[in-house]
């Protein structure tokens, strides 16, 4: 690589970072959507009567089964077809968020079931409604149990944000390809830089989750190494 190649790369860093910011925004959006829907789907699967529970299982099956790339294209072009004025960015958040909600729902379902029916019975016995029991007894415990498996889902969806480039979102991967397209000598360093960005984000995210896990650890519950990293 020549000196001028290096120069181009260094000049490209701010562009790449601005692209990465788009990935972070997609990430936050899809995680929020996946979190809320994931909890709802899990609650319906565990607590609701047969028909809604079966529908929730169907939802989960669909969004875990369709390849994410196909899902992105389906939602973006599908909504366009029906003249819904949707931006690629929003389409990416929705497609990846729905997909993530299906995965997250299984994390939450497992955690809710691990908390157990007895906690529910105890809450009902003091006069709580089911919703109160879920809000004040079941979810506070289930969310704690969800953090370790959830960090998996986090790492996975973080990387999936690059798929948004397929429907035209100008994010970091797309910007890297643009730089490389103009100067092939930069292919290796540019993509290495992108890889490094994601490694750093993965580390930061998991570090934050570790902090949360320690912060909300229940005293007396010996979870060895809970929230400890590196």
């Amino acid at each position, binding site marked *: 690589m020549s000196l001028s190649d290096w120069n181009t790369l260094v000049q490209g860093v701010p562009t790449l970072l601005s692209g990465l910011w788009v990935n972070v925004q997609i990430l936050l959006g899809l995680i929020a959507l996946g979190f809320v829907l994931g909890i709802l789907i899990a609650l319906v699967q565990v607590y609701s009567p047969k028909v809604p529970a079966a529908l929730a299982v169907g939802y989960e099956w669909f969004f875990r089964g369709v390849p994410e790339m196909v899902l992105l294209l389906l939602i973006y072009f599908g909504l366009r077809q029906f003249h819904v004025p949707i931006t690629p960015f929003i389409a990416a958040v929705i497609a990846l968020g729905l997909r993530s909600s299906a995965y997250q729902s299984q994390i939450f379902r497992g955690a809710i079931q691990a908390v157990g029916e*007895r*906690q529910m*019975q*105890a*809450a*009902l*016995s*003091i*006069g*709580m*409604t089911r919703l*109160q029991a879920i809000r*004040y*007894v079941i979810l*506070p*415990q289930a969310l*704690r149990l969800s953090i370790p498996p959830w960090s998996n889902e986090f790492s996975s969806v973080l990387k999936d944000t690059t798929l948004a480039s397929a429907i035209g979102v100008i994010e970091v991967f797309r910007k890297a390809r643009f730089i490389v397209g103009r100067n092939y000598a930069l292919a290796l360093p540019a993509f290495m830089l992108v890889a490094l960005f994601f490694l750093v984000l993965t580390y930061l995210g998991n570090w934050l989750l570790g902090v949360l896990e320690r912060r909300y650890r*229940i*005293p*007396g*519950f010996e979870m060895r190494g809970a929230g400890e990293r590196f």
Partner: protein
Amino acid sequence: MALLVVEDLHKRYGREEVLRGISLELEKGETKVIIGPSGTGKSTLLRCINRLTEPDRGRIWLDGVEVTSPRTNIYRIRSQIGFVFQDFNLFTHLTALDNVALGLIRVKRVPKREARERALRELERVGLADKADAYPAQLSGGQQQRVSIARALAMDPKLILFDEPTSALDPELIGEVLEVMIELAEGGMTMLVVTHEMGFARAVADEIIFMEHGVIVEQGPPEVLFTNPRVPRTAEFLRKITEFYGKSG
């Protein structure tokens, strides 16, 4: 009308009829003890009384209000009936104090400060004021069960149901829980207790109810049941549990 009236209660699980026409009454301030072999429906009976399990047939009244009526607010009824579980079932993510205060805050809508003061008084009552900030996992079984009794008491229940409150405990921890229960009974609490601790029954029970295969075989004051039961099966069962649990037990 008695404080608790249970009339012809039936409950079936699949093909098995677990309760086959149970009727009983509890006057205010009375303590009755239910005994009977495993699988006889004792837990099912208690759970039907506050409708944690829906009975198939039969009626229940608490303080003149029909518990089994579809128009009754069952949450309100449940808040008036304490339930003490065999395995404590404290909320694992809350301190002892918050376990006791939660129902006051969320069900009775008592302001937080007031609720926590009340909760602390209930913990004092069961001798655990010094453990207010401990989490369930940091307490012994006996302490956990006492917290769960405090949790029931905080709601000012009209009646407390106990489902084998000491049978998950190490022998040396049983005494501290029974002590609290005896104090409650003597203090005028209305209690329906499934237990095989006959020492407790002799000390405070107004009546012992012997259940088997979903029906009440015999009921009467402890003196009568121990010395002069009507049904031979009662004598046999009482002999078995006193052998197993010990006389003072």
